[in-house]
């Protein structure tokens, strides 16, 4: 506090509250739509206050067949698929990035820099710019409609490798010297010293990667054709298409709500790690 300006303080709070209202409005409307019955949701203007059908919609969405008149997997199945994909992507990325960062920082071997640049290139090849050929590769490997196909092509990561490289470079050399004097081999040193020392970085990265994995859209859209393998984020688009014939906005918005609760929960519950992860991976 530099000076006391009560009017400005009140104005600051007011602006922030207006900002929050604008940011939260879409979610509020989603929540409200998920608490009404289908008939109310076909009458304009749509309600702005919650109704009494939340649990009904909740159970119908989660365990029922989703929208009536469409072929789709139950929502609990899609949530499970999303969870599997998000976890496989985040653990996979962390594991292979830890290993390659360890090799690049702690070993001297021919082609070390070559490997480093090879990994660096992945930064420049987002999935959106090479969708067709990557799809062909996955199809040739028979990985369509599987958890492997959903996750493996996305787990190579330059940013995670860079981040762990930065972390390892800040660990004092004396650690390695003393570990070697005590007779620890490379793997022992990696497992007993490096991993525990980078624990918070791993956790922070996990928060970011979980959200990244959960929110994947284009990739699952391409490689899943069986309804059993659809993810929750994908299903929204299919429901929006179905809504053009038979609008059941209460179910659609309940599904949207269920799709955003896990990543939002992760961000809010692990806010400190989330902020750390965000600033570390992007710099």
């Amino acid at each position: 506090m530099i000076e006391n300006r009560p009017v400005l303080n009140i104005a600051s709070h007011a602006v922030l509250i207006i900002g929050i209202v604008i940011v939260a409005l879409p979610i509020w409307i989603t929540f409200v739509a998920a608490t009404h019955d289908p008939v109310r949701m076909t009458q304009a203007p749509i309600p702005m206050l919650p109704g009494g059908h939340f649990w009904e919609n909740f159970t119908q969405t989660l365990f029922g067949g989703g929208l009536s008149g469409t072929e789709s997997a139950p929502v609990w199945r899609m949530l499970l698929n999303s969870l599997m994909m998000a976890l496989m992507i985040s653990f996979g990325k962390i594991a292979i990035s830890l290993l390659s960062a360890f090799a690049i920082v702690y070993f001297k071997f021919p082609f070390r820099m070559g490997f480093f640049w090879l990994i660096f290139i992945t930064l420049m090849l987002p999935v959106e710019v090479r969708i067709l050929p990557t799809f062909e590769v996955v199809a040739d490997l028979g990985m369509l409609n599987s958890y492997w196909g959903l996750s493996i092509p996305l787990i190579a990561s330059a940013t995670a490798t860079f981040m762990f490289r930065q972390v390892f470079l800040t660990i004092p050399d004396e650690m390695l010297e003393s570990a070697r004097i005590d007779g620890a081999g490379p793997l022992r040193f990696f497992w007993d010293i490096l991993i525990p020392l980078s624990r918070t970085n791993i956790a922070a990265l996990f928060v970011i990667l979980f959200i990244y994995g959960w929110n994947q859209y284009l990739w699952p859209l391409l490689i899943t054709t069986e309804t059993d393998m659809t993810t929750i984020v994908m299903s929204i688009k299919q429901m929006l298409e179905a809504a053009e014939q038979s609008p059941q906005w209460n179910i659609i918005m309940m599904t949207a709500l269920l799709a955003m609760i896990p990543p939002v929960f992760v961000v809010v519950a692990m806010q400190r790690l989330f902020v750390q992860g965000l600033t570390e991976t992007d710099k």
Partner: protein
Amino acid sequence: MLKRVHFPTSLLPYLLVAPQVIITLIFFIWPASQAVYQSFLIEDAFGMSTEFVWFENFTYLATDEQYLGSFGRTIFFSVCVAFLSMSAALILAGFADRIVRGATTYRTLLIWPYAVAPVLAGALWVFMFNPTLGIFPYILEFIGVDWNHYLNGNQAMALVIFAAAWKQIAYNFLFYLAAMQSIPRSLIEAAAIDGAGPVRRFWDHIFPLISPTTFFLLVINAVYAFFDTFGIIHAVTQGGPANATTILVYKVYNDGFVGLDLGGSAAQSVILMFLVIAMTVVQFRYVERKVEY
């Protein structure tokens, strides 16, 4: 780069980098090189024969009005998204930086749209602006605006810009707030003693001091608007009406998967790759300079 003390050469480091390198080769390098190769080919309508045509796909794109139009729209879209979300985030961060009590509560309430998937953000906005049911068309009718983004290309563009900017506010806010909080208090206090009011202090001190962050966010927002907004477009407008919202990433997908024009789609992919490379180079050069200072 390498530790002064390190392990002796053996087979082990190769095994350690193997998973990352194998996945990179199979799912990144190989498909990317395929995209480059295919961009030099033209396939006939039935997929029976292909012909090697050098740069014909590219020269075709350079004269294709649809492609050039899509390029222009992508730039317009990105500029609008970056400007809207960055200025909203700057205003919110500027006020949040002043507040002593409750700042973390505000932060918590402002950052979570980051976690909402782009396609979900699109779904929420398309629901709010649904021409028959949505709350905004209902309100807009009172001021004489007839909202229908299924028919009106400008309104469709506005809607995808809103949805994309909304989702990005959280990210920009976090970085702006962190930048403002890292400015030494004594600097701002000195300005206050010299008689500068809050507005003057913001424009003459805070804003110039956080300019590296602004530049960094510009690059990040451009990358976001170019590549991460596919879900929003796909959910809200599907590129329509009449291609009014077909941005480059959407066009690659549409020409390749829906239109099955392999050569044309691959050529577009190659152009996008060059764009990503350019943006990454800019981003890294900036990071280097920041380390110096």
